């Protein structure tokens, strides 16, 4: 598969339930004792990575589908746009697609975007990331 052919690839939609215990576990792994996470009143700003990795296409699967050599893959950029509140206990559905793929001097850059919707079908979060494959 050529780099250009990767643009437009859509992965299967995935669903993940926002569990209070998972929020706590994730906050503790970061070492973030903010009481609002313990109480399930908010999600850590990077929590969507849990939704992606546990609920959707994890890194290893992603690398396989995009034909990337795992040892050469690095995370270049990450952006989150918070459009609505995600509540504890809610199920969110994500859809990931490849929005761009370019080659630079000694690396390929692949941009992925995931749109998350809540149970009411409202867009609540957009995640954009750039994956680097070193040559």
């Amino acid at each position, binding site marked *: 598969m050529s780099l250009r052919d990767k643009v437009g690839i859509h992965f299967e939609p995935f669903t993940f339930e926002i569990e209070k215990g998972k929020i706590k576990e994730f906050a503790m792994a*970061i070492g973030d004792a903010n009481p*609002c996470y313990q109480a399930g009143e908010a999600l850590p700003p990077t929590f969507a990575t*849990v939704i992606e990795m546990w609920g959707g296409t994890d890194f290893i699967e992603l690398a396989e589908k995009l034909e990337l050599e795992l040892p050469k893959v690095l995370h270049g950029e990450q952006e*989150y746009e918070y459009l609505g509140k995600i509540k504890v206990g809610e199920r969110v559905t994500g859809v990931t697609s490849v929005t761009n793929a370019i080659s630079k001097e000694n690396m390929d850059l692949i941009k992925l975007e995931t749109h998350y919707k809540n149970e009411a079908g409202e867009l609540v979060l957009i995640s954009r990331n750039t994956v680097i494959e070193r040559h």
Partner: protein
Amino acid sequence: MEVGQEFIPLTKEEITHTQLVRYAGASGDFNPIHTVVPFAEKAGLGGVIAHGMLIMGFVGKAIGTWFDVNRLQKFSVRFNSITRPGEKIIVIGSIIGDTNETWLCQTKALNEKGEVKITGSFEVRKN
């Protein structure tokens, strides 16, 4: 709060191998370059490296000490360099601009030598 304000830096404890294993489990990112030393060495990394997302998580923690995270609207980072177990991360940030509704902020995660790990920006609703 006002434009130009610098936030109180967040200083994290030294990153350990155990923390990387724990973060792998919590986040679900089991890429072995973060947890399996022989794999990471074979990959030419000279040992395991921290998940970039863990360092972004530290920045997220800092934002949570500066603002109510429920008011966070946008959070973008670039991963500038890799981080290894044994390094200590410091997160700094400041307000660089605003609109009627939003504070526009920038942030960096550095190690003790001042090596930049992450440069980022974020936007927070004022009310």
